[in-house]
């Protein structure tokens, strides 16, 4: 009998296939809205791979882009639970294949005399720009689809990365698709 309880406590959920999803939310531009969205994701156990938020052309509205790994049932929960938030005006799922996605990364690499020469070449291949050079380091900027950034991170793994930051993906729907 005790086993039965333990089994139940361990959540009787069968693993389902997870996919990467892009959720766009139009929210009222007020203090605390981001906290509400973040709190919802946290308390419902939805994971967040990345989250961006900013004002839009309409100053009363902000747009949040969340990328999340979820199975189909969880994803529907994310959408319907988000829609319940009073200050969320609109929730939409963007197609990860056709939507326009961009992310920016800054990365500071240690300059080793031996490898220094090769950095511009790698940067050039990925259309990354050198935005700052210090005595012991070089800062690069790259903008692109998250997958491109991932590839660039892989490519520069041979260097010593001192620090890096990524903005997380921001995205707009394909073609004439508009959220409002």
């Amino acid at each position, binding site marked *: *009998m*005790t086993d*039965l*309880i333990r*089994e*139940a*406590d361990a959540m*009787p*959920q*069968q693993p389902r296939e997870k996919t990467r999803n892009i959720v766009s939310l139009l929210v009222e531009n007020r203090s*605390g809205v981001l*906290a*509400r969205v973040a*709190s*919802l994701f946290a*308390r419902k156990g939805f994971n967040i791979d990345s989250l961006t938020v900013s004002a839009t052309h309409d100053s009363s509205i902000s747009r949040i882009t969340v990328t999340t790994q979820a199975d189909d*049932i969880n994803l*529907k*929960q994310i959408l*319907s*639970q988000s*829609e*319940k*938030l*009073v*200050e*969320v*005006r609109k929730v939409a799922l963007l197609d990860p294949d056709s939507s326009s996605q961009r992310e920016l990364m800054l990365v500071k690499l240690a300059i080793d005399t031996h490898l220094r020469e090769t950095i511009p070449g790698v940067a050039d291949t990925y259309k990354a720009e050198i935005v700052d050079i210090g005595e012991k380091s070089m800062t690069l900027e790259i903008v692109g689809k998250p997958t491109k950034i991932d590839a660039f991170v892989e490519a520069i793994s041979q260097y010593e990365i001192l620090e890096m930051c990524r903005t997380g993906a921001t995205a707009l729907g394909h073609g004439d698709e508009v959220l409002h």
Partner: protein
Amino acid sequence: MRLSGAEILARVLIEQGVDTVFGYPGGAVLPIYDALYDHQDTVTHYLTAHEQGAAHAADGYARATGKVGVVLATSGPGATNIVTGIACAFMDSVPLVAITGNVGTAYIGRDSFQEVYTTGITLPITKHNFAVQDVRELAETLRSAFSIASSGRKGPVLVDITKDAQAAWCEWEPLAQAQAPLEPQQVVKQAACFTQEDISAAAKAIAASEKPVVVFGGGIISAEATTELHDFIHAAQIPAAHSLMGVGALDGCDPLSLGLIGMHGKASANHALAEADLVLALGFRFSDRVALDARRWAAQARIIQVDIDPSEVNKNVAVDQAVVGDVREVLLALLPLVQMTIKTPRTHSWLSQIDRWRADDYQPLDDDDALKPHQLMAAIAELAGDEAIFTTDVGQHQMWAAQFGHRTHPRSFITSGGLGAMGFGYGAAIGAQIGAAGGSGRRQPVIHITGDGSFHMNLNEACTAVSYRLPIITVILNNQALGMVRQWQKTFYDARYLASTPKRATDFVKLAEGFGLVGLRAETLDGFRAAFARALTIDGPVWIECLISGDEQVLPMIPAGGAVADIIIE
């Protein structure tokens, strides 16, 4: 006209039809109390012993009347003390507006005296909350709060108002002249509800079904759909089981009532669910105390879920069809379709099968010389009458009350279902009594059923019941234990009892007298009946302590995560 924020608050309350407020004063709400001073003929403020009691009272008031309950508390500890009450209302979808004061805007964020981040603390346990620092936003915000609390899936809304916003003045327009309150997005979103196709598909599934079962929950009560439920199940001849929150929505003596399902539900009801080929879930949220094993629950059935909240669909149990909308409207739409599709023979064989299961249902043995919980509950139901409101605390007594309390009217069984908050019952009884009496002075006894464990949590509210001479009969099932904890320790932890059998020496009769109310004690069923009959004649609160055996268990029981095959009956 120019008014202070506090005065605006009082006027918006009146405009929203509020005549009853439960609360506790303190520094950060004194302007509000000062404004309420001038409106005592319209708005009655009930002072409780503790803010938690006020929150549960507002909740009990809302559950008894269907109106929005209002609780008022000061900043800091006042706000933290209502947290359990708000969470309780949130879990059971009870319309509540909680108003808290906060320190002046200039003191916000400085760890000022009695400052807490109230909207942060209550963010995950409210349907929505607001922090008001500008008096010009107050009226519209409060109107939105009432609108959000009482629309769609109901729930608690908190409005936190800084002390300076209460004291500041601004222009105020009564609702008729003011712009309509900002329509909460909630309402707009939920308007996208069921279609005729949804109804036809559901009706078709019902017609095709050989072994249908309805399961319903608190949604039936909050949608005021008890008549429609009754008419629907009779028209379609579908037996109906209910969750804890559904108690009272259908007379347990109705031939189509299957009674309680879930952990402490009837074996017959759980069998019916397990064998059903169609389950129609009405205002029922598939809680883990009912859908014990979400994967295996009603495994053979096509499940149709009717709920006003789209996010409930597939949340706990995967369903085959969802009908999103007000359950009363859905039932009204379904009714004409099912009347034409009843297949009597299939119904007959299914109902006969259910009757065979019923014959084997667990029935505890009577013993008139002792106080058996099931006999006690039956006696209360008989002596108090069908219309009496029961409130409960949480634990064994709560389950016995649900199993044997025989509630036949909606809003006559008020219990903390989702949160399971011990200490809920006395505050709830106070609110329910005041709400049910409706300020008419009508004598409407409320029966508060509790255990010695739960009662010790919030029995301080006895002083409130005395202050307002409320006819609340508290029946304390004293087993000298935290009975439900002890039962779990016995069943699942090899009877290793720790912290469940406190050696308390509380003399409830003397304690009652100390509070200024009548205390009685019963050790036999006859003794109880006599005590209860006497309690019904007393003008004011009464406690009846009932000595029951510590070995009494809530049966049957299906363990968490289990199925009907795992049922325990001894």
